């Protein structure tokens, strides 16, 4: 399974919320939320109930304790009364202690002893004392109190008339809270003569109020005095201290005389559930309190237990969630993992889920799908392999064909570019060896000689490059077993793919590694030009398709050989033509020399005579001699024209290029022109711009052109105007010659610049070779210029010449070389 046939894996989407997380969250919520809801509802209800219960318990306690205090107080009154329930003898003693203002000490001691006995027999009172109606304590169980006054104490007055309960008050003398019970001491006549008082023992009271079962650790009952708002019985948390006053909602309500209860902050700044009542006889408020926290301890315990339960539930939920999650996601993860393997091209992994749930079925389907995929990929790969093999073989064939075409193209290109046949053949064999990776390759030429056909080794190459064919043996046409000779004989392809098979195979001693050889005739039509000889060091190398390519190559070589033949023939012809040309130009030079030399003599001698240099001549003789000079000049111009046109024809006309000042050229032409019109009724006008530029050109040839145009104008204008104009234009110097002469018929226009063709009007007029304008045209064009004309019969003609400028240089003054 190759990786390259697998599609590139898609970018994986990151998992934002996994199934596991989701399931865990859900199971946790499921486990915890109901518990929390139930707990909070239950706690709300229980809490309220617990509070109510605690409150009513406190109220009950307060009620019970206040009743107990009342009872204790009543019992204490009875006890005080019972102190006087003495035999008469002892009673007299007591009366004696108050009868007299100053009882005798003996009596006092006696009575004191009596009271002390009584005091120690009970715990309700801490002191018994007897005072007179005058307010003086005569006897007290506490000796120090004797002989002190009670007149100013609050209970004094009420106690004089009846038994009295003095609620707790602050004893200014002792700075202590006191609660006192009194009972009158009456004489026999029933008169109150003194009072027996008992100081209530607060310790006993405190014991009454001490916490009992059900008070827990914070429950307490205590009494608060109206007098100072202080706690008169030591509470559970504070000792009795008359100097300290306390306040709380409960204390305030109790001291106002209310009996109720509620939730408030007590004297210790604790949140409590408390109940309170007023004990009128004792003048104190009674409070029963328990700290809210303790009262609600059960509820809180329930809350704590519930929270623990919730936590346990949560953990359980999590564990269950995790288990379920794992149970669910593990196979899914496995499937994902395997799918990712498959995406990366590994199809060997299988889920093999051991679950019988839907996921198990999914895994099974997945595995089956992978199995099918593997099968189809295997099929696809095998098809791809087939296609690739096919394509590879096609590629090889295309490459071979391309190579063949390239070699053929190379050869073709060489055929068109390389005309040296020997070099061409060498290039062909060299590139053939290289391209086809041959052992060696040769081209033989068939040459017919007087001795018959000969097979000449023309070019060769082996793996090292081209070889010197001289070093190889030639093949005689009758060499037995020679593939080449056989091909030469039959003009057919001869193939030996295993040189050890033909018994008579002729092995070239210089090619010892040849294992296969093929020789292909190089044919042009039915004519055998040569033989293409291929050697390979591989047995069975030459397959039919390659031989067909090599045959094509041989055909190309045939064409090349023929082309080369034709080329060498054409080269020979060209050489001949060049030679002929050379002879012709030599002839021209000679003719020029031979014709000009006598003309030199003719013209000069005639002029010498005509001008009288050699003696006097008469007018008639002068006229005659002038005709000789004119004829001689005409002959010279003919010779010059014929020489020029001949040179042009053989391509030998050369320009002697130098800087030409057009101003000077025009000036020279004008002066000649004036001579031309001297004897004719022609108005010769010059319209030449000053400062014409210097151009590159052949001064003599340009002069010849201008003169030709001017002389033509004069020649074809019987009378009228000839205008020579020259001006500088954007693209050159424009020279024109306009005449008012006979003009040229439109049908003759094409003939104007043709050689030896004069127009009808031209023929009618005297003289002319018919070469002037063709020569002028050639000269102008050789200068890169242009010549043209406008004309119609009877309308005159205008000939124009446009010569390109050499830069923009202006003529610098008159530096003309006169007379040329």
């Amino acid at each position, binding site marked *: 399974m190759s990786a390259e046939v697998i599609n590139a894996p898609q970018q994986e989407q990151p998992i934002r919320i996994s199934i596991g997380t989701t399931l865990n969250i859900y199971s946790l919520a499921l486990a915890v939320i109901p518990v929390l809801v139930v707990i909070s509802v239950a706690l709300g209800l229980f809490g309220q109930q617990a509070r109510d219960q605690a409150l009513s318990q406190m109220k009950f306690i307060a009620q019970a304790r206040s009743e107990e205090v009342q009872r204790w107080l009543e019992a204490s009154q009875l006890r005080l009364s019972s102190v006087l329930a003495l035999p008469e003898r002892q009673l007299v003693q007591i009366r004696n202690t108050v009868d007299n203002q100053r009882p005798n000490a003996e009596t006092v001691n006696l009575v004191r002893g009596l009271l002390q006995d009584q005091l120690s027999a009970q715990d309700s009172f801490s002191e018994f004392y007897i005072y007179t109606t005058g307010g003086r304590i005569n006897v007290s169980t506490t000796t120090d109190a004797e002989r002190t006054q009670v007149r100013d104490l609050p209970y004094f007055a009420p106690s004089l008339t009846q038994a009295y309960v003095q609620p707790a008050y602050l004893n200014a003398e002792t700075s202590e809270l006191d609660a006192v019970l009194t009972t009158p001491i009456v004489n026999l006549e029933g008169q109150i003569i003194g009072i027996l008082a008992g100081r209530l023992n607060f310790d006993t009271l405190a014991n009454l109020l001490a916490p009992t079962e059900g008070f827990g650790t914070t429950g307490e009952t205590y009494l608060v005095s109206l007098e100072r708002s202080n706690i008169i019985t030591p509470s559970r948390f504070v000792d009795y201290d008359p100097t300290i006053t306390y306040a709380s909602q409960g204390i305030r309500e109790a001291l106002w005389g209310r009996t109720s209860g509620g939730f408030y902050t007590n004297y210790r700044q604790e949140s409590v559930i408390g109940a309170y009542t007023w004990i009128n006889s004792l003048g104190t408020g009674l409070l029963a309190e328990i700290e809210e926290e303790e009262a609600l301890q059960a509820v809180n315990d329930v809350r704590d237990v519930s929270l623990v339960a919730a936590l346990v539930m949560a953990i359980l939920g999590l564990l269950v969630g995790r288990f379920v999650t794992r149970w669910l996601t593990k196979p899914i993860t496995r499937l994902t993992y395997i799918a990712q393997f498959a995406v990366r091209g590994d199809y060997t992994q299988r889920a093999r889920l051991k679950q019988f749930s839907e996921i198990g079925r999914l895994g099974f389907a997945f595995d089956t799908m992978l199995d099918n995929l593997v099968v189809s990929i295997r099929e696809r790969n095998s098809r791809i392999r087939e296609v690739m093999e096919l394509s590879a073989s096609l590629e090889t064939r295309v490459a071979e064909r391309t190579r063949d075409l390239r070699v053929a193209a190379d050869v073709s290109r060489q055929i068109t570019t390389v005309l040296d046949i020997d070099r061409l053949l060498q290039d062909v064999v060299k590139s053939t060896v290289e391209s086809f990776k041959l052992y060696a390759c040769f081209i033989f030429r068939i040459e017919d000689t007087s001795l018959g056909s000969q097979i000449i080794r023309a070019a060769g190459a082996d793996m090292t490059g081209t070889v010197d064919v001289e070093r190889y043996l030639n093949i005689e046409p009758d060499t037995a077993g020679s593939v080449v000779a056989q091909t030469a004989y039959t003009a057919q392809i001869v193939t030996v793919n295993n040189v050890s098979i033909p018994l008579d195979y002729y092995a070239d001693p210089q090619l010892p590694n040849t294992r296969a050889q093929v020789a292909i005739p190089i044919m042009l039509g039915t004519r055998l030009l040569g033989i293409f000889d291929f050697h390979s060091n591989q047995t069975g190398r030459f397959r039919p398709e390659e031989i067909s390519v090599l045959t094509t190559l041989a055909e190309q070589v045939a064409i090349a050989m023929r082309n080369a033949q034709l080329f060498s023939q054409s080269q020979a012809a060209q050489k001949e033509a060049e030679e002929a040309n050379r002879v012709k130009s030599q002839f021209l*030079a000679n003719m*020029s*020399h*031979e*014709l*000009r*030399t*006598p*003309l*030199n*003599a003719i*013209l*000069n*001698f005639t*002029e*010498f005579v005509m*001008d009288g*240099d*050699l003696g006097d001549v008469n007018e008639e003789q002068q006229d005659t001699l002038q005709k000789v000079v004119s004829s001689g000049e005409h002959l*010279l111009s003919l010779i010059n024209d014929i020489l020029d046109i001949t*040179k042009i024809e053989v391509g*030998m006309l*050369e*320009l*002697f290029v130098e800087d030409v000042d057009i101003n000077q050229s025009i000036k020279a032409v004008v002066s000649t022109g004036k001579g031309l019109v001297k004897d004719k009724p022609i108005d010769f006008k010059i319209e030449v711009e000053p400062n014409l530029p210097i151009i590159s050109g052949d001064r*003599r040839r340009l002069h010849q052109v201008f003169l030709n145009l001017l002389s033509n104008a004069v020649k074809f204008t019987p009378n009228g105007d000839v205008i020579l104009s020259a001006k500088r234009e954007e693209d050159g110097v424009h020279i024109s010659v306009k005449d008012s002469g006979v003009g040229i018929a439109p049908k003759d226009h094409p003939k104007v610049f043709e050689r030896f063709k004069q127009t009808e009007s031209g023929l009618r007029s005297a003289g002319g070779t018919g070469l002037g304008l063709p020569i002028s045209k050639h000269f102008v064009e050789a200068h890169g210029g242009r010549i043209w004309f406008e004309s119609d019969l009877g309308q005159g003609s205008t000939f124009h010449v446009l010569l390109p400028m050499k830069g923009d240089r202006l003529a610098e003054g008159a530096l003309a070389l*006169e*007379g*040329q």
Partner: protein
Amino acid sequence: MPISFLYAEDDPMSRQVMHVMLTKLALGGGAEVTIFEDSSNFMDRVKALPKVPDVIFLDVQITPHTGFEMLKMLRGDTAYDGKPIIAMTASVTVSDIEDLKKAGFDGLIAKPVRKKVFPELLDRILSGDAVWYVP
């Protein structure tokens, strides 16, 4: 002292024309003219002249020594090297002129040269101008 010319020319007609030109027409007449009919023993004959010529005209196609050879001989002798040596020929293609210039001729008068222009050309040659006259 009259101007002296040397002219080597094998064509009799040309010799006669130049003789008239140089003796009768040029410089108002009176110049001394020596004409060689061939170029044999050229330098000996030149040196045998009573005085060094002021201008030497050499026909190019002359035997046995061509104009080029005579030029070379003259240039090899300091006595004649400084004098204007002018080629006379009827062959006046551009390559001919180039050859003459390369060989070291001071000028050219191509045939046919007419009596109308010759005296002026001669004046210019004598004044030191390079004259390359082709009609």
